[in-house]
C-alpha cells in the first residue's frame, strides 16, 4: 500500500462508466448513513458559530478603530490603551478557538469519521485507508 498505484498500474484518464456508476451509488449511500449525517451536523454545529464569532470579533477591531477612535485611545493600564489590548486579544482568541476546534475534532469528529469508515468497509467492500 506504499504507492499510489495500488488500484492498478496506469490510472486511466476516464474511468469505465459501469464502475463509476457503482462507485457513485455507494458514495451516495454512505452520505445517507446515520453516522455520516451525524458527523456533518456535528462539524457544522461547531464551525458555523465559531466562524461567525471570529469574523465578528476580528472586524470589530477596524470598525472600532475607525468609528470609536476616542474610546480606543483610552489608556487602561499605564500607557497601554484599549486599541492595543483588543488587538493583542485577537491572538489569544485565535489560539483559543483553534484549541477548542482540535479538542472537538479529536473527541467528536474523529470517532464519528471512524464509524463512517467502518460502515464504508461493508458498503464498498474494501478497507478504506485510515
Amino acid at each position: 500500500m506504499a504507492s499510489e498505484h495500488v488500484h492498478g498500474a496506469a490510472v486511466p484518464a476516464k474511468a469505465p462508466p459501469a464502475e463509476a456508476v457503482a462507485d457513485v451509488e455507494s458514495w451516495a449511500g454512505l452520505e445517507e448513513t446515520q453516522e455520516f449525517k451525524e458527523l456533518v451536523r456535528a462539524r457544522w454545529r461547531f464551525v458555523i458559530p465559531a466562524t461567525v464569532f471570529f469574523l465578528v470579533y476580528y472586524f470589530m477591531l477596524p470598525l472600532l478603530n475607525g468609528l470609536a477612535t476616542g474610546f480606543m485611545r483610552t489608556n487602561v493600564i499605564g500607557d497601554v490603551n484599549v486599541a492595543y489590548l483588543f488587538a493583542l486579544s485577537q491572538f489569544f482568541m485565535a489560539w483559543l478557538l483553534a484549541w477548542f476546534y482540535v479538542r472537538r475534532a479529536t473527541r467528536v469528529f474523529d470517532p464519528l469519521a471512524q464509524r463512517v469508515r467502518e460502515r464504508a468497509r461493508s458498503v464498498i467492500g474494501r478497507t478504506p485507508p485510515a
Partner: protein
Amino acid sequence: MNVTLLLFLIVVGITLGITAWAARRSGTTVQFWAAGRGIKGWQNGLAIAGDYMSAASFLGIAGLIAFNGYDGFMYSVGWLVAYLTVLFLIAEPMRNTGKYTMADVLAYRMSPVPVRSAAAVSTIAVSASYMMAQMIGAGSLVKILIPTLDTQLKPYFSWAFLGTKLDPSIAVVGALMMVYVIAGGMVATTWVQIVKAVLLMGGAILLSFLVLLHFNFNLGSFFGKIASVKDAKTGLNFMEPGILYTYGKSSIWGIDKALIENISLGMALILGTAGLPHILMRFFTVSNGKAARGSVVWAMGLIGSFYIMTTFLGFGAATLIGKAHICSTGTTCKAPNSNLAAPRLAEYLGNSFFGTGGGEFLLAFIAAVAFATILAVVAGLTLAASSAFSHDFYVNVIRRGVAHADVSEREQVLVARITAGIVGLASIWLASRAGATTNAAALVAGLAFVIASAANLPAILFTLFWKRFNKWGAVAGLLGGTIMSVWLYAIGPGFSLPAPAHPAFPLSNVGIVSIPFGFLCAIVFTYIGELAKADKLAEVKFHEIDVRALTGIGAEPAPAPA
C-alpha cells in the same frame, strides 16, 4: 572576508546541502510535488510558518510599526486570525480529497479541462504577484544588507536579456531558488522552509529579548516610552490608532475612507490565506487529514508568537532609534527606509550590549535571516507556480485532456523541473524589469491575497460544500475574481509610485469590491450553468467529495514506513 558574507555563505551552504540530500528523494511525482506525503504534522507546521512569513512580514511589519506605530500592527493580527479559516474549512478536506494542487480538488467534481485551465490562471496570477514582491524586495535588501555581493557580481551582469539588464542581487536569489526546486522539489523546499522558520523565530526571540532587556523587563516603562514617541504629521502618539489610517479625513460612498481601506485590507488578509496555492500545497505533504490539522495548529502557534514579537521589534526600533535614523547609509537621512527597522535595531542592540563588533555581527545575523526568509518563500512560490503550469495545464489539460495520452512519471517530473526553471527565469527577468517603479511591499497584501480570496476561495469552498456548484460557476468565479482584482488594482492608487492624484478606482485595497464579486460570479454562473444543464456530473460527484472530505475515505495514501 567580512562577517556578513560569511553568514550569507553559511545559509547558502546549509540550504544547498539540504538540496543535495533531497535530490535523491524527488524522482517521482508524489516525491517532487508532495515530498512523498512523509512530512510530519509538526514539521509541516514549521514549513507552513516558513512558507508564509515572508520578508514583507518580518522586515515590512517591523518597519510599518516603527514608522506608524499601532496601525502597522493591523497586518499582524489579520495574518494570524486568517488561519482559523484554514483550520475550520480547508486543511483537512483539502488533504482528504486532493493530490498535488488546488485544481485537483476542483477537477474531482467538474470537467477537468476548463476547471484546471481556469485554476492554473488564478494560481499563476497569485504566485506571480507574490513572487514579484518578494524578488523586488530581495533585490533591494541584498544590495543594502550585503553590498559586497552586489558590487562583486555587477561586472558579470553588464549584458541585457530581451532589453533588460538583470539585477545581480535578484539573479542570485532567483538562481538559488531554482536550484532548490529543480533539484530537490518539495522535499528540499520543505526543509529550507523549516530551517528558515527556526532561524526567523530565533532572530525574533533574540531581538525581542534584547529590547526588553534594554528596558529591564519593565513593560510599563517600555510602553511609556512608546507613548512618548509622537507622529510628526498627526501629533498622535505611537500607541494610538490613526497614524497610517487617517480616520475622518475623507470619505467615499458616504463612509470614512480610512475605515473602508482598513476593512477591505482585513477581508483580503482573513480570506486570502485560505486560497494561497503555495500554502494549500503544503497540506498534501502530510500523511492524512489529522496531520494536516496538527500542522495548522503548529503553524498558528509559531506565526502568532512571531507577530506578537514584531511589535517589540517595531516599537523597539521606534523608541530606541527613531524613524529619522533608520537609513540605508549614515545615521540621519531625509528618506528613511522602513524595511531597515529590524536590521538597524539589531545593529543598535548589538552595539549597546556587546560593543562595536557586536553590532556588526547582529546586523549580519539579521541580514542572513532575512535572506533565508526570502529564499524559503520564493522556493515555495516557484513550486506552486510550476505545479499549475506542469501538473494542471501541461499534464492534465494538454496531454490527458486534449491528446488523451498516457503520461509517464518520468515525463511528469521532467516537465515539472523544466517549468520550475522557466518560472524562475521569468521572475528574475520581470523583477529586474519592474525594479523600483513598482510598490513592492503593497503588491502582496494588495494583489496576491485579494486574488486568492476573490478567485480561489469561492471555488474551493463551493467545490467542497455546495452540492449544486458546477464547472460554469467554478470557471466564472476563478476568472471573474482574478480579472476584477487585477483590473481594480491596476486602475487604483496602489499600483504605481508615486500614487496618482485621481485614480479611476479610489481604494488601494480592492478586496471589498472584488471578493464579493468573485463569490457572486461563482453563484450566478452556477445557476446559469444549471439552466444550460451543462454539468450533471458535478452534482453526482458531490456525494463522493462530500464523504471523502470529512472522513478521509479514499484519500491519497501515506507512504509505508521505510
